[in-house]
């Protein structure tokens, strides 16, 4: 620890205890253990290697930036100024207008091939109607479409990290019918990105991904949706604080009921924990204070691709099935019961018909037998 201390002179504004707290937290999220904490501190402190980060906004609500601002250990000021070098962030940067754009160009030129891009928000690909319609014209910043900006900035980046479900997979904009043709950044540009989905992302996971990049010079291993395995390997359901109530068969059936007060399992209230991969319970939000299920609300599956479509209705166990004729949404049970009912009705009709016809049929057989007897003596 002491050797690390000497290298931290530049960290004048940061509380040492807080800083080591963050390092320990990142170490836990990455699954590295205590002995790696000094290494993480070193990696973050090496001023020469302080990574230049460009933070881009596309179709989104800035919720991911908000979550990023809620880190208190260290505070966002320390994070932005001392630990990382966030050179361009439209929401929190001091510069504006032309100055800001110059800064972006300068950063890209100076750190070509070395800077990290953090993307927030989906990129629309559809062309708006009208004579001046550009591809992706539903999002235009300073006469450039989101697609053009993303392409220019991400082309020379060392790595692209998508924070939040929008940047990762399109998010709410990409929900059916998706009028602007919104997709995630990776899909829009056809590049491989590291995705930190959730709504909003958990900054601990995002910073851990950046730290992984600084420590090892490479991005962390990911699952098939580009999510780092250190955070997205396990389901919400399997690390849930209410799991014992699930196994015990103790469920909340009504909001505000006695069961809800006791903290029973939210399975019947439509919790999507069993379908969702994330480390919410381990990392938690707002400086490790809370997470949805801890607050008494079911998981909505916000770290899964297309969760608005596949996970809704959020307060029901299973989604509806689209019946091909009429476009009515029914539950699987209704369709299944109708199918079984149809089978029963079919069988009943068949039985009534065939057994009603019995005599005629049997008589015919007897007739034929008589005929055969005559013909064959």
């Amino acid at each position, binding site marked *: 620890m002491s050797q690390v201390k000497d290298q931290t002179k530049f960290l004048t504004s940061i509380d040492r205890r807080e800083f080591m707290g963050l390092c320990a937290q990142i170490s836990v999220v990455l699954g590295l253990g205590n002995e790696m904490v000094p290494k993480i501190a070193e990696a973050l402190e090496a001023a020469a290697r302080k990574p230049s980060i460009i933070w881009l906004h596309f179709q989104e609500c800035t919720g991911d930036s908000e979550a990023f601002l809620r880190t208190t250990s260290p505070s966002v000021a320390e994070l932005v100024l001392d630990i990382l070098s966030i050179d361009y962030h439209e929401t929190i940067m001091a510069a504006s207008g032309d100055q800001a754009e110059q800064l972006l160009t300068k950063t890209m030129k100076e750190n070509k091939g070395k800077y990290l891009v953090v993307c927030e928000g989906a990129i629309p690909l559809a062309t708006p109607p009208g004579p001046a319609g550009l591809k992706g014209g539903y999002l235009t910043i300073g006469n450039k479409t989101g697609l053009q900006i993303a392409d220019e900035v991400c082309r020379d980046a060392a790595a692209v990290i998508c924070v939040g479900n929008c940047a990762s997979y399109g998010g709410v904009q990409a929900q059916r019918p998706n009028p602007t043709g919104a997709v995630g950044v990776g899909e829009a540009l056809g590049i491989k990105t590291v995705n930190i989905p959730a709504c909003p992302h958990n900054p601990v996971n995002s910073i851990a991904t950046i730290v992984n990049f600084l420590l090892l010079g490479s991005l962390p291993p990911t699952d098939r949706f580009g999510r780092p395995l250190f955070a997205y390997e396990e*389901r919400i359901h*399997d690390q849930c604080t209410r799991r014992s109530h699930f196994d015990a068969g103790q469920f909340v059936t009504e909001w505000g009921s006695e069961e809800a007060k006791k903290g029973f399992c939210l399975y019947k209230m439509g919790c999507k924990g069993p*379908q969702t991969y994330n480390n919410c319970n381990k990392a938690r939000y707002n400086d490790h204070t809370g997470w949805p299920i801890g607050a008494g609300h079911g998981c909505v599956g916000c770290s899964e691709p*297309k969760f608005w479509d596949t996970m809704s209705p959020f307060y029901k166990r299973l*989604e509806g099935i689209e019946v091909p004729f009429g476009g009515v949404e029914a539950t699987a049970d209704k369709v*299944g019961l109708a199918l079984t009912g149809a089978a029963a009705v079919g069988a009943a009709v068949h039985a009534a018909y065939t*057994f009603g016809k019995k005599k005629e049929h049997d008589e015919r057989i007897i007739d034929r037998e008589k005929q055969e007897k005559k013909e064959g003596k």
Partner: protein
Amino acid sequence: MVILLEMVKVKTASVRVLHWVIFLATVSLVLTGLYIADPFWLSGSGEAYQTFVMAKIRLIHFLSAIALDVAFLVRLYIAFFSLFHTDWTEVLPTPGNLKEAWNSLRFYWTLEGEQKDYRWIDPFDGITFHLLHLVLILQLFTGFALYVSGIELAAGIWGIWAKTLHIATDWTLVVFGGLPGVRLMHHFTLWLVVSGAFLHIYHQIWKTIKLQRADISAIVNGYKLMAVKRGK
């Protein structure tokens, strides 16, 4: 001409036992499956450590699933390598089988013409068994896809099992749109199994009464009646 009927052996003991294992496992799977989808009936009372209702019902569901799958695989082996009678060709939708199945279906609804006497699986049954087993295979893959999502962090031999299941079932996540889609499909297919089993049972009872060939007894004691043309 006098039609003489004769008892003939059509099903070995192993086939009959496997049939009833599959029957019991299916009943157990449907009941526990409905409970897991919507825990409407039992609920644990007292503190969470005193009761284990959902976990036990899930265990029964998993064990029944394993029993069904193993019985199905053994039955598949017998279909190909039985010393008594190999019947795998009878459940394939070949043009010949389809044509005969269509004739049977027409007979079942119109009673026109005459139903041939089939000693083994008759072509209409063959086609329905084919469909029913495809449905069971779908249940197998979607079920294991849901199952393996709960043992992602398994290590050792258990981890090899998890990896094997991933290799075998990950395609269902792509086809049905992630775990929610797989869950929905698994649940909906339950109803396909229920309605299919219902039609199967009705059909066998109907055949037994209408054709007078003791079809149901084939799956109980292994024998059914066959027409033998003898004498004049």
